[in-house]
């Protein structure tokens, strides 16, 4: 069962990152019904900025944990500024336009941000310097024990802290209540003296801040960053948000963790499950093949990126509103 436990830990780590990114999609969708396709790029910029800071300070005598913290502290305000500006410049003028217009604009913004990153950081994969030594902890005493690393622990703990923080913000603070008010009745919110524009800006800023941290987490986890990394990550997180029920915070968390787990288990077991040699018991005749080559997997772990989308399609067929979403017809 060590493979199982290992994939559970890997999936949970990845799922936490997806969940934090998915929260950014779902918050913005919840308040203005816009799919902010540029959110993945905000995450990428977070990773890139942190990378630049870490490289610049590496070996300067500043203690490594402080360097990483400074990287995060630089990434957050820069991503917030990007999120704020994108909303103000690209989306706000289209607030009352037909829905296709802001959607296409979002895709355009995403491409622009990718190319800005390309100009600044180049087209190559950038590897994060391992300034904090990777420590691995064995979970059992067996030789093949599943392990968890210090980075995985940090990602999981930090993600949970951010999720709890966001829930407290949205449900317990004045601005959080206003966010929900604007999402439910934007016209009436104005009558309360609430400036919808300010609340919407705030939502983008918070989502971008979470995205910045997610970017640093994913960059440190995989050890690499790339100007196009936001695309697939953003797409999966978006799937996570839709899977959980877009607009719903708990749904984004659930969807993110599910996508992470599905991906990890898919990567861990897909090879075995689709290995034709295991069919020999049921359909004799593969023996000859398998004598020559013991692993004849039809789909290997490299198909892991596909799982998120397969699951999304299946769920949407049976539950178009997502796992925790309300039916659209029920919305005011």
């Amino acid at each position, binding site marked *: 069962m060590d493979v199982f436990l290992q994939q559970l830990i890997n999936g949970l780590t990845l799922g936490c990152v997806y969940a934090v990114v998915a929260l950014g999609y779902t918050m913005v969708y919840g308040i203005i019904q816009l799919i902010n396709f540029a959110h993945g790029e905000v995450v990428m910029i977070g990773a890139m900025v942190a990378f630049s800071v870490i490289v610049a300070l590496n070996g300067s005598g500043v203690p490594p944990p402080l360097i990483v913290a400074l990287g995060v502290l630089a990434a957050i305000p820069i991503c917030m500024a990007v999120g704020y500006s994108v909303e103000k410049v690209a989306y706000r003028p289209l607030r009352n336009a037909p829905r296709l217009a802001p959607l296409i604009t979002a895709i355009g913004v995403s491409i622009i941000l990718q190319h800005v990153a390309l100009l600044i950081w180049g087209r190559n994969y950038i590897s994060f310097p391992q300034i904090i030594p990777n420590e691995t902890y064995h979970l059992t005493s067996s030789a093949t024990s599943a392990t968890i690393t210090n980075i995985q622990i940090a990602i999981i703990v930090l993600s949970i802290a951010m999720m709890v923080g966001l829930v407290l913000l949205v449900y317990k603070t004045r601005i959080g209540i206003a966010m929900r008010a604007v999402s439910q009745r934007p016209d009436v919110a*104005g009558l309360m003296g609430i400036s919808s524009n300010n609340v919407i800006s705030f939502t983008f800023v918070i989502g971008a801040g979470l995205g910045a941290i997610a970017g640093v987490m994913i960059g440190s986890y995989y050890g690499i960053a790339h100007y196009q990394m936001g695309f697939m990550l953003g797409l999966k997180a978006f799937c996570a948000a839709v899977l959980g029920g877009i607009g719903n915070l708990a749904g984004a968390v659930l969807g993110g963790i599910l996508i992470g787990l599905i991906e990890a288990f898919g990567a861990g077991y897909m090879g075995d499950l689709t290995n034709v040699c295991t069919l020999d018991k049921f359909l004799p005749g593969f023996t000859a093949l398998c004598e020559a080559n013991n692993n004849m997997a039809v789909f290997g772990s490299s198909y892991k990126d596909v799982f998120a989308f397969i699951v999304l399609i299946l769920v949407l067929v049976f539950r178009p509103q997502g796992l925790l979403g309300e039916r659209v017809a029920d919305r005011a």
Partner: protein
Amino acid sequence: MSLLTLSDVKISYGGIQAVKGINISVAEGELVTLIGANGAGKTTTLKAISGMLKPYTGRITYDGKEIAGKPAHEIAQMGLALVPEGRGVFPGLTIEENLLMGAYHRRDKVAIAQDIEVAYTRFPRLKERAKQTAGTLSGGEQQMLAISRALMSRPKMLLLDEPSMGLAPIMVQKIFEVVREVAAQGMTILLIEQNAKLALQVSHRAYVMDGGLVSFEGRSADLLHDPRVREAYLGEAA
């Protein structure tokens, strides 16, 4: 002195003119009602006053300042509170959160908590359901909430759009009691009502709207006995 004045205000939806040049004024401490048939332009007028719509011409002055075309949240912060048609509660927010949103631009936490207690005393139903979402309330309870929420901003002037719409008679009575009570405390009120008789009974002055224009205006007591008003709006033979 007049707190709110509309001069030659015209409002249109796209090309369709809904309000065709009206003059209305409400003095400080006055309870004025605006009555008229469905589609006369009453709601449109209130929306323009509260900043939800921009009149294409005309002046709206409130408290000495021109407010036509200002965004709704700025007008609300100036002390003009609208209870919108259909109540407009935030369905997914609890009663308490709805009330807190009414006080959004206030910072005096202690006084806000006191005002919530005042609302609960006025409408004990709201207190019983303080932690429930507003979407679960009955129409009458939602109206109590909408009025209480508007009062939470401690407005200088209250605009009410058909507060009795769709309510059982006993609920209508309760709502009007509160309108009277609030008016008696000195609040300036502009009240839209379909129940013309009730509206004329509680108000000082009245405007009657018809097809986007003001067709009659005067003291409510006089309009109650005006044969033209009685025939057209009170459902009585002249």
